């Protein structure tokens, strides 16, 4: 495959991974705030949430591998693993590397969840929210498609969905505390 084709795959998987991450985030917020409706059981939402999270990590890894294989991107092993080492678009790639780490931590701590303390697991799991935000920032700053209207509209819609789900979750948390207090 040519560098140009790897570049296309990098862009495509980056966009899909961002959408999947936002979808996992939204489903997770709806599930944890008990706003999943009556049509599906909570286990269904949890199952889908876990799957979307894992798929997000897979597409993120493909995104990284494709950018590594594209020799024109200037991304090497050091830039992939260590934040702040990229020469071009240093900050944007830094956000992407950190977001990848948060996704990986979130996924890999969900499997041995029962062995972790609930508070610690929840704290680690919530870092994925920061990861999604950083992934969106990464796409906005480094993506060549960020200048297109379709990409900006899609990014705005996904961001609005994520903020809405976050609002629902925070509201549910406040309501629960009010009832308990």
């Amino acid at each position, binding site marked *: 495959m040519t560098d140009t084709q790897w570049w296309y795959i990098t*862009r495509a998987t980056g966009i899909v991974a961002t959408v999947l991450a936002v979808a996992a985030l939204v489903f997770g917020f709806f599930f944890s705030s008990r706003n999943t409706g009556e049509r599906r059981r909570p286990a269904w939402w949890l199952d889908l949430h876990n*799957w979307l999270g894992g798929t997000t990590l897979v597409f993120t890894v493909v995104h990284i591998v494709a950018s590594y294989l594209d020799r024109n991107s200037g991304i090497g092993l050091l830039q992939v693993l260590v934040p702040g080492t990229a020469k071009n678009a240093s900050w944007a790639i830094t956000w992407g590397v950190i977001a990848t780490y948060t996704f990986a931590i979130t996924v890999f701590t969900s499997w041995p969840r029962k062995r972790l303390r609930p508070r610690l697991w929840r704290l680690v799991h919530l870092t994925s929210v920061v990861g999604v935000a950083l992934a969106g920032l990464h796409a906005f700053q480094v993506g060549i498609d960020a200048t297109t209207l379709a990409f900006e509209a899609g990014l705005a819609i996904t961001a609005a969905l994520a903020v809405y789900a976050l609002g629902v979750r925070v509201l549910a948390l406040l309501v629960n505390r009010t009832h308990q207090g």
Partner: protein
Amino acid sequence: MSDRRILPPGDPLLARLERLERERQGTNNRQVPTGTSPRQFAPPTATLNARQYALQAARQYAPQPAPQPARQYAPQPASPAAPPASPQAARLAALQAARQPAGQTARPLAGKQARRKRPARVAKFGALALSCATTAGLVYLFADINTTQAANQALAALPTAVPVATTGAAPATPSTVPATTPVVDSATTVVVAPTTIAAPVVPVVQAFNGDVIDTRYGPVQVQLQFTNGGISEVAVVAYPDGDGTSVRINARALPTLRNEVLAAQSAQINSVSGATYTSNAYKKSLQSAIDQARAAGITAIA
């Protein structure tokens, strides 16, 4: 034995139950309570393992008819810690324990039970398929956009048409432009008269627009530019550019046709493979421009 009442004849479970019964009587005879009525079922002792307890429960509740075949029940593990909630549950546990050899785990779930275990199976694979399809579609879109951009750049590099006094079929009034005036862009041939000559011969560029030839993909119109009686440039006034495919085709075809015209100095050129409609319309428009040039007095055309 009472087990025969709930199991059909020939069921392999019967032989397993009988074997387990023999083992129980031979090893743990003192630890299994016997002689009790079905409603006086005693909870298991600490030394009674799950299989023995399940077998005991099955034998005690055997007189009651089994509502469904044993294969349709979910394989719930029999726990010796608490007695079953109902006689039906006890029968289920007994059948399951008897079917499951010692040291082996439960069989993999299937059908409805599997859906309960993996509730969002359809949605998950749908999401995965959608993600892969979206990725492939985006890759194709990016490649298409990139190719179209390259084609647009190639078309933009083609020579542009110069203004003519009359267009269309009127043959008599071609535009006559001194070569020193900057009406022809840098891509066209512009000969500047040397200043040292006292009476310079100022070459002129004469432009003739060919007819507009409609194709199913859009109109094609060619402009011929003559310098010193020969074809010095061929510009394309109009070509099909309504979609990306037409742009890509014409970005390849139009430069080829232009080079052929400049080389042949006539309309006797070959069509470009894969651009038949554009080629034919190009040649027709070119021929009409040549006809106009001949009518205007340019006769050095083949």
